[in-house]
């Protein structure tokens, strides 16, 4: 590809001295042409929320194609999303949030998108922030931009245990990556082609990507930053960390996951899982 010969972005923040990995699949931003943009929405049984989410994305970010990944819903999520004008990829059975994200990364890579913004299908993420998140990546300032609830007080107060987890793992991720991570669990992110191309590897988790994935990105040489976003409470009331056993498992899994991520050999950004591309 010709893009690989483009110059590296000049304006780098001091916190990230390493240059981003530029492989044939990850052209350096800013691009000479208008970037091809896609907004992706993993959804599981969200037939009530998804039409509004798709419509909001189209309204707030008209330059973005919309892809809904139906992770094996038992309701009409896929049909209503398609009717709302989104492209839909249906998993034959439920495989988890992380797998749905990865399917979208594979889709975006196959279709040659340059930038990808991911947001949740339950309407928790306000689509009006999509252009701001994307701008961080398209300007060449970063490879991954995470929308955080905590850099500014925009009115989000998570439950106690959730907050403790966020603080602890945020701290670990901050120490490991050398820059402040306030909201490692946020699924509201913009990724460059290089970053989502890299995530096609089998290193990407099946369940909720978290601080471990941010550390993984950092170790692969990608730059990550955060900008403040406002989030609404999940209208369906579903939480990914409910119950008693789930939070305990979550804490255990995160420690293990961060531990092995740090102990593994440094991943190479240009190495892509066999069978892809």
């Amino acid at each position, binding site marked *: 590809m010709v893009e690989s010969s483009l110059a590296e972005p000049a304006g780098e923040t001091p916190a990230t001295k390493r240059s981003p990995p530029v492989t044939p699949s990850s052209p350096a931003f800013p691009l000479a042409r208008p970037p091809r943009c896609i907004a992706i929405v993993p959804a599981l049984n969200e037939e009530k929320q998804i039409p509004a989410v798709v419509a909001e994305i189209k309204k707030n970010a008209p330059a973005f194609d919309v892809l809904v990944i139906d992770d094996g819903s038992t309701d009409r999520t896929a049909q209503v999303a398609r009717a709302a004008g989104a492209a839909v990829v*249906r998993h*034959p059975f439920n495989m988890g949030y992380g*797998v749905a994200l990865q*399917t979208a990364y594979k889709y975006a890579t196959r279709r040659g998108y340059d930038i990808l913004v991911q947001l949740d299908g339950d309407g928790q993420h306000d689509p009006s922030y999509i252009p701001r998140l994307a701008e961080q990546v398209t300007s060449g300032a970063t490879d991954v931009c995470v929308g955080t609830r905590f850099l500014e007080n925009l009115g989000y107060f998570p439950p106690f245990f959730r907050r403790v987890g966020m603080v602890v793992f945020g701290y670990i991720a901050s120490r490991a990556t050398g820059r402040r991570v306030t909201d490692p669990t946020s699924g509201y992110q913009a990724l460059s082609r290089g970053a989502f191309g890299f995530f096609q590897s*089998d290193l990407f988790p*099946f369940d909720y990507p978290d601080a471990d994935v941010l550390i993984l990105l950092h170790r692969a040489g990608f730059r990550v930053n955060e900008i403040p976003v406002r989030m609404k409470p999940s209208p369906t009331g579903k939480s990914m960390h409910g119950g008693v056993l789930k939070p305990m498992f979550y804490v255990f899994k995160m420690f293990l996951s961060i531990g092995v991520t740090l102990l593994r050999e440094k991943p190479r950004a240009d190495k892509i899982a066999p069978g892809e591309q």
Partner: protein
Amino acid sequence: MPLVMRVVIFVAAFVLMFIIFELVRKRRLREEYSWLWLLTGLLILALALIPEEVLVYVAKTVMGTPNPPSAIFFLAFCFMVLVCLQFSVRLSRMTEQVKTLAQKIALLEQDIEQERELLAKKG
């Protein structure tokens, strides 16, 4: 070890190996999984044939116990744990493979749907 006991163990191990062999022959068990179970059968068979003095000696010097049965139980337990672990490893690999396949199917299905839509639009 009484002779009757040795015979029982010997027969049990023999039956186990016969069952494994039959399963492989009828293609109900794949060869690459069978070797572990055949090894298990062989170990049990060996147990029936090894003289008692050797068992006691090994238990005492290697495991530090005067009680061969406890040593045997411990080793058998370790062996079974390793077998289970091996299954978990295979299961992890298969989960990854199933995931990749399902994703591929989902993406191809979307490709087909899009092609159909384009064709329908063309007339």
